[in-house]
């Protein structure tokens, strides 16, 4: 008898738990999510086998409720409560609501309404006679089958009642609402008021005979929830922004109109620059390797005459933010100094843009235009580089794609660099100049020596670029050639000399004539002497003067017939007046060496003519 009553108690207990599970799973979004996760597992739990309905793991709250409602004779009342969060303003004002809880916190008092009340009760008389024997077994099977049927219909009905729509809305994560569904389980319930009963309907499931009593399930529910004004909150849906500055999928040169100001609000030292124009960036060239990003070509061309910054230099360019108005000039001056520093190092480390075969010289400007930019471009996303205020003529700013060499500047003389260094604000720049000066004084760094080496190659070729290329190939330091030719551009600006309109003119000058290693010290002294004259001028002006000096330097033979072109002669005649003041007496050894070179050349020519 106890065994039979135990069975009945077990059926009733499990029946109540199952109903509670079904109801909460269909009304409480949080519990439903837990159940969904557990249902993903294929295994069937023990609790699932009860009444042949697999629902997944029972939530812990359910176990606690079962424990608190151990008395099976007490009714189990499950209230589904609609909580409407009050708002002092319209929902439109709450444009951003991170969560319903936050909205509730920010809103006024909430209104709670019981929209469903489920009552599960085992009606059993106090005194009853329990069946026994075979009748009991059959009875329990029937009870169990009928419980299954009841649960099936309850499960279906849960999805047909109006509260299910609210549950589905809350379960979706796309929006937040100004309401929520909560539940309350108790063994007693406060009766509805007359107002609450209005608009509510009652449905009672057919009781399941479970002798000596019967299982009764009923629901009181709101037939329509339209009166509650349930609506989603106006909120910004989460949106993944894939197009942002620095995104790998975004064109780094793309302009972000709304972020132009923001670009300058960053920690880039470009803060001192003038705000950028509305002109969009130009896409950097493929070989720019990112160093030139964020720097439009036009701007760098305005900073022309500046040597490219060899960013691979291990010395950082600690340049403080110069005044905005003078930024361009200061940068240019600094660029010269950095070039000097760079020439002292191994130029093989320089990037492809400085090779003679490089395509448009624009990136050269880009890299050398602003060492700050080059440094930061390697670290951060590209930003808008404003046009600096310069009074320079722009006619020399357009890149000449045919000859990239013109976009680089020659190394300055130690004195000129030194003088320029004094005007620099950066102590590191000064240090770099002094180092270069030391190198020029006694040593022959590879870069500089290569610059003045291989006279054969230079002399054979009369073509500007060819001569330079020959020079470059011999020296293995193409950057030097670039730097040399570009220096005249700044000199042009200062000297207002139209002769520099064509950068190839620089190559026409027998600069290579003075490129022998033995004359290196003479050149250094010449440069130094000349630099004294232009000590007070800008960095670029000094470089320009140097170029001009090299161009107008008298030949070793002191013979005007050495010049093959009339233009050269003219230049020589015009330039000799300037350079003559700096002509130093030549040593016999130098002359002898030159003689030997000419003799060899003569023999070569004769041999070739003899073969013909």
């Amino acid at each position, binding site marked *: 008898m106890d065994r039979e009553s135990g069975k009945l108690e077990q059926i009733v207990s499990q029946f109540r738990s199952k109903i509670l599970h079904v109801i909460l799973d269909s009304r409480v979004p949080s519990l439903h999510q837990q159940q969904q996760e557990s*249902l993903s597992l294929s295994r*069937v739990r023990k609790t*699932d*086998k009860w009444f*042949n*309905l*697999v*629902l997944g793991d029972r939530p812990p709250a359910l176990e606690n409720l079962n424990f608190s409602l151990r008395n099976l004779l007490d009714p189990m009342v499950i209230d589904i409560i609609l909580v409407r969060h009050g708002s002092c303003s319209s929902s439109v004002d709450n444009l951003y609501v991170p969560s319903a809880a936050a909205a509730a916190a920010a809103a006024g008092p909430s209104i709670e309404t019981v929209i469903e009340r489920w009552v599960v009760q085992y009606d059993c008389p106090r005194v009853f006679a329990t069946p026994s024997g075979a009748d009991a077994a059959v009875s329990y*099977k029937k009870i169990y*089958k*009928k419980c*299954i*049927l*009841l649960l*099936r*219909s309850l*499960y*279906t*009905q849960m*999805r*047909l009642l109006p509260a*299910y*729509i609210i549950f*589905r809305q809350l379960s979706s994560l796309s929006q937040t609402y100004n309401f929520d569904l909560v539940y309350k389980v108790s063994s007693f319930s406060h009766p509805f008021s007359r107002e609450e009963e209005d608009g509510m309907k009652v449905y009672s*499931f*057919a009781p399941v005979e479970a002798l000596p009593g019967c299982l009764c399930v009923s629901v009181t529910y709101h037939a329509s929830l339209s009166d509650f004004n349930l609506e989603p909150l106006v909120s910004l849906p989460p949106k993944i922004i894939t197009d942002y500055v620095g995104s790998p999928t975004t064109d780094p040169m793309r302009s972000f109109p709304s972020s132009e100001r923001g670009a300058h609000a960053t920690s880039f030292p470009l803060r001192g620059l003038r705000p950028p124009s509305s002109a969009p960036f130009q896409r950097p060239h493929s070989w720019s390797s990112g160093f030139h990003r964020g720097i439009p070509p036009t701007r760098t061309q305005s900073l022309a005459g500046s040597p490219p910054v060899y960013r691979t230099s291990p010395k950082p360019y600690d340049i403080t933010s110069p005044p905005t108005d003078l930024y361009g000039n200061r940068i240019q001056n600094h660029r010269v100094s950095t070039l000097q520093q760079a020439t002292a190092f191994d130029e093989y480390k320089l990037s492809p843009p400085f090779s003679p075969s490089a395509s448009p010289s624009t990136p050269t400007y880009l890299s050398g235009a602003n060492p700050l930019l080059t440094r930061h471009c390697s670290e951060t996303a590209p930003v808008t580089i404003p046009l600096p205020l310069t009074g320079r003529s722009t006619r020399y700013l357009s890149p000449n794609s045919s000859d990239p060499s013109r976009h680089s500047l020659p190394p300055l003389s130690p004195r000129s660099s030194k003088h320029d260094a004094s005007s620099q604000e950066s102590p590191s720049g000064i240090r770099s100049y002094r180092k270069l000066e030391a190198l020029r004084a006694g040593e022959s760094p590879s870069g500089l020596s290569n610059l003045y080496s291989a006279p054969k190659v230079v002399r054979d070729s009369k073509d500007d670029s060819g001569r330079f290329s020959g020079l470059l190939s011999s020296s293995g330091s193409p950057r030097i050639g670039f730097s040399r030719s570009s220096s005249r551009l700044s000199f042009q600006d200062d000297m207002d000399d139209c002769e520099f309109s064509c950068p190839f003119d620089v190559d026409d000058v027998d600069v290579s004539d003075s490129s022998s290693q033995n004359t290196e010290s003479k050149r250094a002294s010449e440069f130094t002497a000349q630099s004294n004259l232009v000590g007070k001028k800008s960095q670029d002006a000094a470089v320009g003067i140097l170029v001009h000096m090299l161009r107008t330097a008298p030949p070793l033979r002191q013979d005007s017939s050495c010049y093959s072109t009339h233009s050269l002669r003219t230049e020589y005649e015009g330039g000799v007046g300037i350079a003559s003041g700096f002509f130093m007496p030549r040593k016999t050894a130098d002359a002898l060496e030159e003689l030997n070179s000419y003799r060899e050349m003569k023999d070569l020519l004769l041999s070739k003519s003899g073969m013909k």
Partner: protein
Amino acid sequence: MNCEVCQLKELEVEHFEIREVLRCILHTIVFHRALGLVRPKDVDLELFEITYVQCGDVELEKKIDERIDHFISWVEKHPNKKSQICLSFYEVKSKQPSWFTNKTERLYWEQWYVNLNVTQHPKHHSSKSHHTKVVVDPGESAIEERSSRRAMVEASIREVLFQIIKFVNEKKDHVPPISEGVIYFPYEITIPSSSDSAFGMDMIKRMLHSGHPTMLS
């Protein structure tokens, strides 16, 4: 054992709604008669805001879809006709073999009749009128008419589903005992054949097999 019959409320549906409506009703009925271990599967109707429950059995789903396809084919051949689909649950009983009967017989213990009235979509006046008439833009009115009609059909479907729930709850004694390992009771979906007379003959045959004179009551 009596055979309980449930005549469901007639639904007025359009041709493109047949499949969804039939799936909803048939699966709901079968779910209430699948008393074995099931993992319920919620399915949302696309045309209506209704969620029904399936057993989650793939074979069952295929069979039901197959019968629905046959029904749709029949409807296409017999447009604008009231039709009826019968979902029957039976038990298989062994029987003494005789000259006219088989070894096994089916004992139908429950039958569900789904009544459908497949209607055609009403045409607009402007499309078929041969007379010169003032053509009024039917756009908004047609949309409103369609939405109201859709709401009516949805309400009717809900009524039918509640009817099923009520029937299942009220009549439980005729349901056979649950067999071990069986998920759902054997069932049969009968659709009207090419002729109405054949449909009636199917019912008579069922009578003869079941041997219950009260089956058609």
